[in-house]
């Protein structure tokens, strides 16, 4: 990982809280701390257009170092510019970086996009199963055969993925409000895992009695790690909502935005690009309209304006 960073002259800091060992997690935190030092001065020069900075979170991307390396190389080739992935542990940090203009693009959840839609510009929306849509799943442990709705989880422990996640936070909040409950006091305890996959794990081991998870992540996980998803049972699927989009900072030059958009849209047609998409279980990108996220906007309005 360190060698990769040195070759690129810029440092990609990864913060994927490992589910393996404490030691590795601590080492990565240390790396993060070290890596963030030179990253800032580099970010300050981003405006000259020499480097494209793309913000990512582990909220739905799993620990995929080799994939990110290949994708970055592919993007660099297509854009003919240096690409840096700036990774943070949650959506909030990424959206803050984007609002401050310290990164150019970000792969964000629909919820923070809706919140800051006047500051962000929509670039493209991934296509999953042919549509730029996905669902939020509410899950309970597989051995819990009694619970069939979120209302039955009163006084229980609930796991969210990220407070800025649509599927992992906004949807269950909205659902509770719709049922006339106060989300802040409905559950006895709630916690964030900062990754959808870890919501599945937390619910699977019984740490949480219920959780909200990105349907795309759950379905993808069901292919690679069926043991994890088999320990959970879906009790509620949200309506189809806009898939987490690629967004750009508001002051992005139109040329840069268009170039990046075209690269994403052409990814499906490119052999390596489509292979990379296949590894993400995505079909491609579409331009997408802000109206795609109206459903999320409606929920956000209800939740934030409560």
């Amino acid at each position, binding site marked *: 990982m360190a060698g990769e960073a040195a070759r690129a002259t810029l440092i990609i800091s990864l913060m994927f809280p490992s589910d*393996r060992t404490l*030691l590795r997690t601590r080492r990565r935190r240390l790396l993060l701390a070290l890596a963030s030092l030179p990253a800032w001065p580099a970010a300050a020069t981003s405006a000259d257009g020499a480097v494209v900075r793309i913000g990512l979170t582990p909220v739905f991307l799993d620990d995929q170092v080799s994939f990110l390396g290949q994708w970055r190389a592919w993007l660099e080739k297509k854009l003919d510019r240096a690409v840096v992935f700036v990774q943070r542990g949650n959506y909030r940090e990424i959206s803050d970086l984007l609002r401050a203009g310290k990164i150019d693009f970000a792969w964000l959840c629909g919820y923070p996009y809706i919140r800051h839609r006047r500051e962000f510009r929509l670039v493209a929306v991934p296509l999953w199963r042919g549509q730029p849509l996905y669902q939020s799943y509410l899950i309970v442990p597989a051995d819990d055969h009694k619970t069939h709705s979120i209302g039955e989880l009163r006084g229980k422990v609930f796991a969210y993925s990220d407070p800025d996640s649509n599927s992992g936070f906004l949807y269950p909040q909205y659902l509770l409000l719709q049922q006339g409950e106060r989300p802040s006091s409905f559950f006895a305890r709630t916690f964030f895992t900062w990754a959808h996959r*870890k919501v599945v794990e*937390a619910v699977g081991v019984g740490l949480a009695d219920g959780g909200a998870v990105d349907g795309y992540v759950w379905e993808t996980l069901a292919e690679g790690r069926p043991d994890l998803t088999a320990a959970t049972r879906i009790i509620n699927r949200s309506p189809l909502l806009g898939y987490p989009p690629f967004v750009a900072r508001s002051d992005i030059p139109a040329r840069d935005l268009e170039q990046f958009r075209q690269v994403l849209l052409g990814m499906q047609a490119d052999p390596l690009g489509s292979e990379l998409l296949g590894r993400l279980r995505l079909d491609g990108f579409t331009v997408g309209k802000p109206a795609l996220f109206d459903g999320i906007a409606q929920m956000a309005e209800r939740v934030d304006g409560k």
Partner: protein
Amino acid sequence: MIFRRNLSLRWKIPLRVMGAVLGTAISVTAALVVWEYDEMRLNLEGHAKSLGRVLANTLVGPVLHDDIWRAYEILQSARETYPAAPELHAEVVLITDADYKVFVSSKPREFPIGSSPATKGGAYAQLRSGSVGGDAMAQRVLEPAGSPVYFVMSPLVADGVALGHVILGYSKVSFMPRFVGLVKRAALVTVLVLLIIAPISWVWASRTGEPLLRLAEAMRRVPGELAESRLTDLPKSGDEIGQLAEAYQRMVGELKDKQELERQMVVSERLAAVGRLTAGIAHEINNPLAGMLTAINTYQRHGSGNDPLALSTLSLLERGLTQIRHTVGALLVESKAKDRPFAPEDVADLLILAEAEAHGRGIGVVVVSELHQPLALPATLMRQILLNLLLNAISAAEEGGGVRLLVEPGDRHLRLAVTNDGDYIPQERMDTLFEPFATTSDRGHGLGLWIVYQIVQQLAGEIEVESLPGYTTFKVDIPYGNTV
């Protein structure tokens, strides 16, 4: 108990040695196991305490920030298994708040968030505020009596305030396989050592007991079979058993001498009694006999002498009476007052007499005589002794065998020895060998040895018989110089 006391040393010594070996092996093994167990406990406690300290330090952040998932991930990583030491694997890790309510546990289903572990009962009942003693800011080991679980508690301290505890629960049961494995290993080593030591000990112990067993076996034969007992192969060593064997040999030897002496005395006394009796009878017979013979003689010489029937009758009587006189005379040997000394020629004469007898049966007679000058011993009696012994020896010798006469004048004794190679004299005949008419030989009248005995008695000598299969020797020892 009685059985144990009566058990032969053949078993007793080896069994006791085996017992000692076994006892030593078991106690050494037990001591090692106990020591190892303590060591294991100390290791485990040290490991648990350091793990608890690390966890407590690491978890302060997540607990302060209410980051349950992060805390859970840390717990999971802390519970990694060590295949080599399964007892180091914590059964459960609990993070509790200051009120002993679960913040997060490694087993969320058993200890859900916000629950009180005390409700689970058993050893966990102690995990509630007020029940846990000791300094809340220090590490504690909680070992509820009779519980299969014990706890190592480390406080979660932030800025001098105890936020809660990291509680590592260890199963004593998971400790058992390791302990059982240890005991098994130790037992195996003990068995292997015993397999080597036991046979050696057994042989060694058997050897220690063996001389005693031989001694006991020999003693069992006393006094019935003294000779056999004496021949037993007894241990020859300088230790107590050797000394015992030596003393025993000495005792058996003395016993045997005593027995022999007693037997000889019985024989001598009986012979003396027989001698007195025969002498008395002979005397009583001799007087009338002499008168009767004189009367017959007178009648023959001066009687009418014409009656042929009377004459033949008297002749018959005379022959009979003469035979009686000879027999009585043979029973009662009397030394003559005057006799010539025993000379080398006498031995030569006897050889001629004996060879005539021996020749017929092809028996060789060898004479070894050291006698070169006359000795002051009555020649007639000496000749009688030698002639009787030689004739006896020739008749006892094997056909074509040999007889040997040794004449050896000593300082003050004359030693004679007559040996033949015939059948040996059985023990039961020994006792009555010298008695008159004791032998029922078809040749002798059974008075030869009796005469020899009487003469030797009169000459204050000694006679001794040694008879073994293959040869029989009569030894006669006669002092000279004061007799005649």
